[in-house]
């Protein structure tokens, strides 16, 4: 980072900006003690990437075992521990913190024109709490050989003894990280927006982070309380969930899903935000139904608390509650479906550029539509009786969580990579990887829909001969998917050495992180507080982005592509 970076100014001159948040303090201490939201965002990014890598390799091992009938590479107990560890790490250590804590931390404060989050020290504390919780959880799982799946259903999980106590404490601790980050972001978005940045001008990514933060603050205490109850049951032998002590195992499922269904929104809402920003930017169009998209996310954050029972149609809960939960599920599903139509509508008469981030956004539209429609099928009460706990469900949530959240996170990562690192990745490599991921993903998981509706139960170490062909195809797909992911990661990492220097606004976006900061940004983000006079996708009000006269005059660093980057 020794070369200088230049920025255009209002008068068209260029000034050098040699200092950025990466090079101003290169010591280890400068990273470990940092309260800069950008550095904390990168530390989260590194941490969740490690979790994703480990949990992804476990998934490959699981798929390899399932390639053929009977024992392929491991015994049943190892298999059960592997899929449990895969699920627990992916959900709690990767997907939940991935977009809000990593990309949200880096991008959100700049997008609202703030120097940092409202409570920078609390932000650093959240990171360390997350790391401690994560390390404790993984240690507990490995030492205790936990094989309960990520749902920890009692009484199976009650029988494990001490390791469960360890794991529940870890989840309890990690929960505070989620709560504190949510709180921090809510205050930041309410109090620290730049002058002129009204709620109607917020980028949709900020709206989605806001909605996510509400869910984090309201839902996470419930999983904390559940963990305390599990702990008390074990330590004090009072019957809560364990039938051997007079407890009720179905009560645990209610508690678990009362958190974990809203947690699904913690995972998917930020993805909606990224997709809105990507489709708006790469279509150069205002996101259609902006207010609807923004406010429905917040509405979902609250209504998402009323549908947990749709995970329990065959658990033994009353028929009447199942019927009510099914109806509510549909009513909440509609706004989400309408969002998809809004995104497609945004592309209508736009100026669409199929660069890597947009390819991920289009993948998202297709995969998430499949995930959503199969969700509707699962919501049909009597059809769910047949499909529940089969691979149909496994495929459905991978389409939503991976086809939705992970694909959106990859799109967002490619989109903000030049801003984070100051380097451009190789575009051709990025596009090939995106296409390969799309193909590999569908080969892996679409076959799982078919075997699931034909009756293949989930969490099976071995299976009936008629399912072997589907498992083989699925396993081959998972390796294609892995190759795609490694290519994408390789392309990004290689940009550190080979990447061209990024201009401050390579995508010609209109949000503040592109128009008002250098790539990478200054340690304090802005030299002076930006003033906002237009919406996040108002391309017709921003001719200066294309080097033409006019615009709102508040833009400091907009520059045409031909602008020289070095002096």
């Amino acid at each position: 980072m020794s070369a200088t970076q230049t920025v255009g100014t209002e008068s068209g001159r260029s000034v050098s900006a040699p200092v950025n948040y990466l090079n101003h303090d290169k010591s280890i201490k400068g990273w470990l003690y940092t309260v800069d939201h950008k550095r904390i965002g990168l530390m989260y990014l590194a941490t969740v990437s490690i979790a994703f890598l480990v949990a992804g390799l476990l998934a490959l091992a699981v798929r390899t075992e399932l390639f053929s009938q009977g024992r392929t590479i491991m015994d049943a107990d190892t298999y059960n521990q592997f899929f449990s560890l895969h699920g627990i790490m992916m959900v709690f250590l990767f997907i939940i913190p991935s977009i809000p804590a990593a990309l949200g931390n880096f991008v959100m404060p700049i997008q609202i024109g703030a120097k940092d989050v409202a409570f920078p020290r609390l932000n650093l504390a959240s990171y360390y709490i997350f790391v401690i919780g994560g390390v404790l959880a993984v240690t507990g799982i490995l030492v205790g050989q936990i094989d309960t799946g990520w749902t920890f259903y009692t009484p199976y999980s009650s029988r494990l003894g001490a390791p469960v106590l360890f794991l529940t404490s870890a989840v309890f601790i990690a929960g505070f990280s989620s709560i504190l980050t949510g709180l921090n972001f809510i205050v930041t978005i309410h109090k620290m927006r730049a002058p002129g940045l009204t709620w109607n001008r917020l980028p949709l990514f900020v709206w989605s982070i806001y909605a996510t933060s509400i869910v984090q603050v309201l839902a996470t205490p419930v999983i904390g309380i559940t963990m305390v109850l599990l702990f008390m049951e074990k330590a004090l032998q009072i019957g809560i969930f364990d039938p051997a002590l007079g407890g009720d195992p179905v009560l645990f499922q209610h508690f678990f899903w009362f958190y974990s269904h809203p947690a699904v929104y913690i995972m998917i809402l930020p993805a909606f935000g990224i997709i809105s920003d990507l489709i708006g930017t790469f279509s150069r169009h205002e996101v259609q139904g902006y207010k609807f998209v923004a406010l429905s996310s917040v509405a979902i954050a609250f209504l998402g608390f009323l549908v947990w029972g749709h995970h329990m149609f065959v658990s033994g809960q009353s028929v009447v509650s199942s019927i009510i939960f099914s109806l509510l599920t549909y009513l909440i599903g509609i706004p989400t479906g309408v969002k998809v139509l809004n995104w497609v509508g945004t592309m209508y008469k736009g100026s669409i550029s199929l660069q890597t981030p947009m390819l991920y956004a289009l993948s998202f539209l297709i995969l998430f539509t499949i995930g959503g429609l199969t969700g509707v099928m699962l919501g049909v009460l009597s059809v769910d009786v047949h499909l529940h706990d089969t691979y149909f469900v496994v495929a459905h949530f991978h389409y939503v969580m991976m086809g939705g959240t992970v694909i959106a996170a990859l799109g967002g990562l490619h989109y903000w990579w030049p801003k984070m690192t100051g380097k451009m990745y190789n575009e051709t490599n990025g596009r090939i990887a995106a296409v390969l991921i799309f193909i590999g993903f569908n080969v892996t998981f679409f076959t799982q829909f078919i075997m699931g509706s034909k009756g293949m139960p989930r969490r099976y170490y071995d299976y009936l001969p008629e399912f072997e062909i589907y498992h083989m195809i699925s396993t081959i797909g998972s390796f294609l998917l892995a190759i795609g992911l490694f290519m994408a990661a390789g392309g990004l990492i290689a940009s550190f050495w080979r990447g061209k220097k990024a201009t401050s606004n390579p995508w010609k976006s209109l949000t503040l992180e592109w128009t008002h900061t250098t790539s990478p940004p200054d340690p304090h983000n802005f030299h002076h507080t930006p003033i906002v006079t237009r919406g996040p996708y108002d391309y017709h009000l921003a001719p200066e982005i294309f080097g033409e006269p006019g615009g709102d005059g508040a833009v400091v660093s907009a520059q045409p592509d031909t602008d020289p980057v070095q002096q």
Partner: protein
Amino acid sequence: MGDKGTFWLPESGSTLSPGLDSLFYFTYWISVVIFVAVTVAVIVFAIKYRRRNDSDIPPIVHENKLLETAWIVVPTILVLIVFTWGFRSFLKLHSPPANAYEIQVTAKQWLWDYTYPNGKTSTGDLVVPVDRPVRLVMTSTDVLHSFFVPAFRVKQDVVPNRYSSVWFEATGQGEYHILCTEYCGTQHSGMLGSVIVQSAEDFDAWLQSGVEDMAPAEYGALLYTQQNCNVCHSVDGTRLVGPTLLGLFGRQTTFTDGTTAVADENYIMESIVNPMAKIVEGYPPGMPTIYSSFDSDQLNALVAFIKEQQ
């Protein structure tokens, strides 16, 4: 049996299947139409409105109120249709006919036990009469399980300390898979069974038949599969969760505490009724203690069967 099912669904074997299959395919085809519409729109727009000039600024598109209202109202109507249909057939799944034949089911790691009204018991194989409603009253003695017969489109969790029930009316004679669909530990995927649908006469004859007239080793062979011993103990020398039964009788066996013993009748009986007493070196102490309830006839039969595995 006969029919192999459709591309998406398995063969259909109960009176409940056709109704559920129509609902499945109704929802499926609506989903296909919506999916194709979205995908085609995405592809057409991506090609038709591709960026031709780097400084293109597209025109503002004014929102079309009619279109927006339509895409909120139409999906709402569709899901309400699907909901109502699903709700009605869900009630049917939960309303067994009053004259249903009742069988008690006990689930435990990792097998299914059935008790018929006349006291006859069976394990693994659930024998039922054709064309007659059957209601299963189920409970578990250990962890959660779930009773699933794909061909009948029925599934219900089986919970300890609580009764749950499921009903079906088989439409054709034959054999259908029973699968456990709630994760229950090491041999979850081995917790299989079969529904054997027989004609009313065959079923009555089966119900009245006993095991008294079988030779001990023959009865032992039946118990070996019925009680799912085969899930953990092979008879061909393959290593599964537990030691193989091949050549077990008379073998010098070493235990985890360092002692050794020759496997005789008493050792085999002790290992069945009190499996934690001696753990064979190199194997986990994982055998369930549920077999302590075997009566002497059953134990004699199993010992005789194991003696034959040389």
